[in-house]
Each structure stands twice: as structure tokens, then as C-alpha cells.
């Protein structure tokens, strides 16, 4: 059964377990490739994670002159191939969400590869496996559809899926509506 990474942004408690887990993925050389942000840092404690959304038509790969960013058959947009990346940083400028990281010393781009060593065999990615607040989940399309119905606030605040994203994505994002006063029911 094909599953996807699914994000329920407002559940995030800012523990940064996903960052720590990401350092341990195969090939990550102990550096994380994801982000956690304070939404309104001077006022409240709401946080949200920001991950590569694994675009169906990825700007990062389209802009890479070396074809170093490969798209896996599962749809995952992989990190730069270490022998191909020529260090131009086009991908970092192209990605609409600012995801790829660049190491100047190593002249190499690195980004979320959806833990391809795990997800290619249907094992959930590291970040989803450790997330204690159900912000990051690993679900089938049917499960995601049910979630979307459950949380469809239908008030113009639904800004986490198309057409509000910059393009179709393999990772699905959702807002359970906590910020709008909707009590969250799992």
C-alpha cells in the first residue's frame, strides 16, 4: 500500500525530534535537512515544521544544470548525487520553499530525500516515525482524504494545499484548525 508523508502543521509542539531524527537517516552524515519555525516568536509558542514537499514537478531538479537531483520512482525528489553536483546553488534559489541546504566547504547541496533508504521499502521516514505530536504522519491516500474532509474548514483559510501551494506535491499538508479555535479530535 503506497503511503505518503502527511503534515498536520498546528499539532507541532516544537520539540525538534524530527530534526534530531533526520540527522540519523542513511547518507545524511549527521546533518538534518528539515526545519521547525516559531510562527509568531515574540507573542506565542505555536511552531510549525517545514519540510521538502517533494513537488511533482520539482523546481530544484528543473533548475539543476548537472542533473544531480534525481526523482525516485516513488516520487521522492532525492538529494544531489555527490559526484554530479557542481555547486552552482541554482536549486536553492529555485525551490519555492527554500528547502535545499548548501555546504560551501564540500561544494555540495543536500536536501530531504524522504529517507529513501527506508521509504523505498515502505518503512516510514525518520521524522514521521519519531514525531510525538502526530504532526508528521505516514498515511495512505484514503486516510489522507478522510483527514482532509475532517479538517476542511471551508472558510478561505485552507492554504496548505492546491491552489495555495506553488505546485502539486507528493507530501500532503493540512491544518487541523487549532489556530482558529477548532478543538482537535484525533
Amino acid at each position, binding site marked *: 500500500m503506497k503511503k505518503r508523508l502527511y503534515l498536520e*502543521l498546528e499539532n507541532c509542539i516544537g520539540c*525538534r525530534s524530527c*530534526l*534530531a531524527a*533526520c*540527522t540519523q*537517516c*542513511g*547518507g*545524511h*552524515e*549527521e*546533518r*538534518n535537512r528539515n*526545519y*521547525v*519555525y*516559531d*510562527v*509568531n*516568536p*515574540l507573542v506565542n509558542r*505555536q511552531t*510549525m515544521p*517545514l519540510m521538502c514537499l517533494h513537488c511533482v*514537478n520539482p*523546481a530544484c531538479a*528543473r*533548475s*539543476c*544544470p*548537472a*542533473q544531480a537531483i534525481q526523482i525516485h520512482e516513488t516520487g521522492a525528489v*532525492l538529494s544531489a548525487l555527490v*559526484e*554530479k553536483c*557542481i*555547486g*552552482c*546553488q*541554482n536549486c536553492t*534559489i*529555485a*525551490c*519555492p520553499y*527554500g528547502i535545499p541546504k548548501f*555546504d560551501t*566547504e*564540500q*561544494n*555540495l547541496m543536500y536536501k530531504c*530525500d524522504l529517507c*529513501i*533508504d527506508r521509504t523505498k521499502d515502505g518503512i516510514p521516514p525518520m521524522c514521521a516515525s519519531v514525531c510525538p505530536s502526530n504532526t508528521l504522519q505516514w498515511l495512505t491516500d484514503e486516510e489522507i482524504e478522510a483527514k482532509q474532509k475532517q479538517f476542511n474548514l471551508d472558510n478561505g483559510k485552507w*492554504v496548505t494545499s492546491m491552489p*495555495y501551494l*506553488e*505546485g502539486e506535491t507528493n507530501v500532503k499538508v493540512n*491544518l487541523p484548525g487549532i*489556530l482558529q479555535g477548532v478543538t482537535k479530535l484525533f
Partner: protein
Amino acid sequence: MQANIATNKETGRSVNHAFASHFAKSMFLTVVGIAILMFIGTRMFTHIDLNLYGYMVGTIVFIGGFFYRFIAWGERPPTKIIIKKGLKLLLRKSTPKTAVNHLAIYDFIRNRGLYRWVQHILIGWGCVLACLVTFPLVFSWMYFTMEDNGYYTIVLFGMNVMHVKAEGIIAWFSYNALNIAAIMVTAGVCMALYRRLSNMQARAEQKFMYDFLPLYLLLFISITGLLLTFQNIVLHGWMQPQMSLIHQFSVIVTLIYLPFGKLAHIPFRPMSVFARNYREHYGEQQMKECKVCGDHFVSVEQSNDVIQVLGVNDMEFNMQDGFNLAELCLPCRRKYRISRFSGFATHQVKVKEANQNAKG
């Protein structure tokens, strides 16, 4: 989606177009070039070593594959820009230094780890050494003549360049160059294979055809090459003609595979010098200011080039807030997305992003 399919068709056609014109032209010119060099090198075809015939055919097929790949690749919009601007900037003062750094001593690989660096020095320089000896021999650009007085003459392009003692150190290095190369490559490949066995991190994404095949091919070439020497010295040439054929076969297969797999990075890698020049040159000219925080984060030229390349791919990230996403520095761009998710203008809060790197 419709538009996407249409543009794919478009590029498909232009690749075919390249095949019909550029490809045939490059192929023709290269083969003619090699033939002329052979003619000069062999003093009008009087010194051809026919044992090496297989390599000749292999090389020609390799050149075909190489041009096919390179031209299809050069047609991609971002590649075209880097090649065009990279060539224009080739005369920068820093080019020789960057080139040595990127293409010969690989400082950046050392920053990835000493082990990976040693491994690549052994494989890369072993292969370069082997090619420097083999190709001139194959195309008869270089050969040795033995004189009665115990001296060898090294003949390069029909000129006697060096006169060396048969027992001397230069002569020893000349006959053993290929053995030294083979030992270097074998050691390097063993390091690469060991790294895959011992280190889970190195194992993340590997396919046999892409990841292991080139290593096995290099190992096969090196070992059959070393066996040739072994048969020569210890077994007095027993089975040497057969082994020579196997060795030739392994080199030819590798040459044919080269433009398509992992080893394709060898001919493409000089682009990293282009990329560095491109970033340095346009960075000195004018830097782009982030539309939110004003930080200088990329050259104006590159920002415009990326926006244009994305445009060719039907991607326009123009926001209603009056900027293109490629005009925001990376932290602001990430915060801007959080603001789109949450409805609160996170990117306008003047707090630097923090605590984003878990120390594993």
C-alpha cells in the same frame, strides 16, 4: 499539466534535432581528428600495433556515446546557461587555481572526509595515469624503440623525445606505469566497496547499474591488467593472449558504459569550474537584495537566470505581495511559507531563524 506535456514534446524534438546536426558533426570532426593524429603519430601508418585494434573500436564507440549524452544534456536550459556563461568567463584570473583545486586535488572532497578523498585520489589519478599511457599507445601517438646499446627511445608523434637507459629509473616507471595505476585503482575501489559494507550512511540509495557496476568494471580492468604482468614475469607468458583479450574486452565495456552511468561525472566535472566562475564573477558585479530583509544572498544575474529557467518550465513563483519567490533569501522564503500556512506574517518579524541544526 497540458502545458507541461507540450513543453516535453518540444525538448524531445530539439534533442533529435541535435542528434541530426551537432551530433553527426562532432562525431565526424573527432574521428577525422583522431585519424589525422594517427597518421602523423604512426609516420604514415607504418607503426600500428594491431594488438590494440579492439581499443580503437571501443574508443570510437565511446566517443559516439559521449557526444550523444553531452549534446542531449547541453540542450537543457540551465545547462545551456552555465556552459555559455562559463565559456565566456574562462579567462578569469582565478580559473587555473579553481581548476587545479576542483579537478586535480579535489579539496572539496577532502572536506567530505579524508577517507573519501584518499579513495578518490587513488581511483581518479590511477585512471588518469592509465589513460595517459594507454591512449597514446593505442593510437600510436607514442611508442618505444629498442636500440642495441641498451637504450630505449620514446617516440611521441614521430619525434624522438627521450632516450633512456633500459635499466634506468625512468624506463622502470614507463614499463610499470600501468601496473602502478592498476594497484592504485584496485586499492581505491576496495576502499569504496568497504565503505559501502561498513558504513550504513554510504548505503542510502544504490542501484546495481549505477553504483556497483562502475566499481566492479574498474576492479575487473585493474585485476586483469595486473594478471597480464604476472603471467609475463612468473608464468613466462602462459595464456597471455587470452588474458589480453579479456582485459581489452573489460576496457571496451567500461568505455561504452562510461557516458551513461556514474562515471559520466568525469567528462562533465569541469563544469564545476564554470559554476564557480559564474558565481564569483556575477557576485562581484551586483548582488541581489532579499525583498524582505535586504540581505545580499545571490548575484542578480543568477537570480534572473533561475527565474528564466523556471519560466521555460512553466513555473512562475510571482506572489501577490509583489515579489518572485526567487527574490527572497532562504530564511525569509521559508518564513514566508510559514506565513502562508498560518495566516500570520512570520517573515515580517525581525527575529533571526534559530535552532535549526540538530547536532546529531
